[in-house]
């Protein structure tokens, strides 16, 4: 087991390195650079010399491999460097937004889990009844509705019915928990509903599979209480694939909520990414992509380990 964990852990490093190389190269292919865009935004004419001085200040005049090694050297010391646009340290730029994205991801995951597990189990035990069909339609509708549109509808409904709008400025949780939740609960519901769809379907099918196992029949034959069979025997084993789905979705929630953030006017990692790439802020974009990819790779790793730990039958290679 320890060897397996170590091997999986070490495999994360080349993948992350690959992500770093890829985003580094991709950004250099994007036409235009931060200096051009900033001077264009200021609307004044600047000679090539001024641009060249600015590029030299940011280190953009150096050969690409040298820029890459400088960046990598910083990363090894856990130093993401300075934002090319604002000049502030990237850790500072990201900190608040990371908190917001993390909180939203956690809340959406909680919503998704609270919906998915009971609904999935219910659909499985009532297979092929109207309850099952209702749950399936509910979840497939969740997959179909873009969460940003659901968000628009929610805001619209609150506006028209209650004449009330959720706060549009982010307040950190410890400053004013009430204000914070009043704002974030809506996007969490919109996103959580959508993400619960996949998990509900997974819960249902995996529960159906487990319920057909011999040991469940044995438990029933010896007259065990149905509720106990479900919670103690069936659920525990059916949860595995659901955990994977929820885990991977959590990772995507960290960076993939670009559009929902836009609707709810949230300054999360997704919006920051769009901004950074539009400004050709290489250092900030690189850091963001690396963080999102690292979360994804780590969650992937963690679910694999949890899998191997929870189900002794599975020991990958």
């Amino acid at each position, binding site marked *: 087991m320890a060897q397996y964990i170590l091997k999986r852990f070490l495999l994360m490093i*080349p993948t992350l390195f690959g992500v770093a190389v*890829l985003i580094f190269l991709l950004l250099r292919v994007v036409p235009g650079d931060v200096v051009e865009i900033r001077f264009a935004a200021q609307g004044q004419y600047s000679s090539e010399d001024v641009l060249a001085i600015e590029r030299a200040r940011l280190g953009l005049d150096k050969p690409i491999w040298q820029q890459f090694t400088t960046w990598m050297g910083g990363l090894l010391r856990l130093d993401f460097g300075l934002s090319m646009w604002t000049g502030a340290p990237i850790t500072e730029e990201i900190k608040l937004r990371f908190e917001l994205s993390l909180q939203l991801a956690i809340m959406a995951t909680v919503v998704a889990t609270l919906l998915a597990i009971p609904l999935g189990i219910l659909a499985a035990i009532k297979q092929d009844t109207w309850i099952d069909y209702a749950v399936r339609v509910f979840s*497939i509708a969740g997959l179909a509705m*873009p969460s940003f*549109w659901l968000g628009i509808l929610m*805001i619209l409904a609150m506006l028209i019915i209650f004449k009330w709008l959720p706060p549009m400025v982010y307040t950190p949780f410890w400053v004013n928990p009430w204000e914070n939740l009043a704002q974030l609960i809506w996007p969490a519901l919109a996103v959580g509903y959508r993400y619960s769809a996949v998990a509900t379907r997974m819960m249902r099918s995996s529960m159906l599979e487990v319920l057909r196992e011999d040991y469940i029949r044995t438990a029933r034959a010896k007259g065990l209480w149905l509720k106990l069979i479900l919670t103690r025997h069936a659920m525990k084993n059916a949860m595995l694939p659901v955990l994977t789905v929820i885990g991977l979705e959590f990772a995507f929630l960290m960076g993939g909520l670009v559009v929902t953030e836009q609707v709810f006017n949230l300054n999360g990692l997704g919006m920051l990414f*769009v901004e950074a790439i*539009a400004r050709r802020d290489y250092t900030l974009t690189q850091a963001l992509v690396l963080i999102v990819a690292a979360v994804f790779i780590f969650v992937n790793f963690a679910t694999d380990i949890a899998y191997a730990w929870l189900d002794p039958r599975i020991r990958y290679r």
Partner: protein
Amino acid sequence: MAVTKETLEDLASAQKPRPRWLQASYDFTWQRPLGAIGAVIIIVMVFIALTANWLAPYDALATDYAAMLAAPSGTHWLGTDSFGRDVLSRVIYGSRTALIVGLGASFIGATLGALIGVASAYFGGRVDLIVQRIIDVLISFPLIILALAVVAILGTGLENVILAIAIPMIPRCARVVRSSALAVREMPYVDAARAAGFTDARIVLRHMLPNVMAPYLIMLTAFLSQAILLEASLSFLGLGVQEPVAAWGLMLRGAAIEFAETAPWMAIFPGLAISLAVFAFNLFGDSLRDALDPKLRTQ
């Protein structure tokens, strides 16, 4: 009971074996009614997209400043937007954009992915290892992040959006197809083909690719709904299809939110169209997956 000419003809036609595709679609409808409902919605949508010129009551681009933000009525069934453009006509024309991007992106993504997956499985060894590591890297990006990066490089517009959506799909399809192709590679006919001295390209394209059709089609249909959603998201952000082209995501942008309180139809109908399209492709894709490969029946 009198035997009429009609009933005899009915009997005769019932005896005649139906063409295979007809029988297959008949079975599919019978066994998977939900999938059939999805298919019907898709067919209707394709029909609407093809005949948009005749169906749409107005030109999708025609502005009418006398009727800006008009509520749904007899003249404008779904109302008008802030430029006085007919929302119904734009929703109808929007189905073209959605289908072109959806079909284009998922076809390119799934096909290239399948090719890479099969080739990776066929060559095996070091090639496979390298390809798999590259796929690991590409899969670590959320779909939309990679699509946004591609848009930044290529620029916006219909063709670029298709590519931007197709590219993140390639590694996902390659991974799934590869696992099926690994089993195909061990088949005697592949050995036979190799013994007969066929080229690698021929074995991959003619012998292995046709035998991973099931996962290929499953991925293709699954991508369809994702591509439509992703196009809507990109267009909503202003990084997809550009005005004045009619696209559902684009219709939800800007004025639709600004005037949401006074003109909610602008925000409601395009979203409904997106949801219905994705719903239909999901229903159809799910049933197709169940029908093609019971083993993959996981969700």
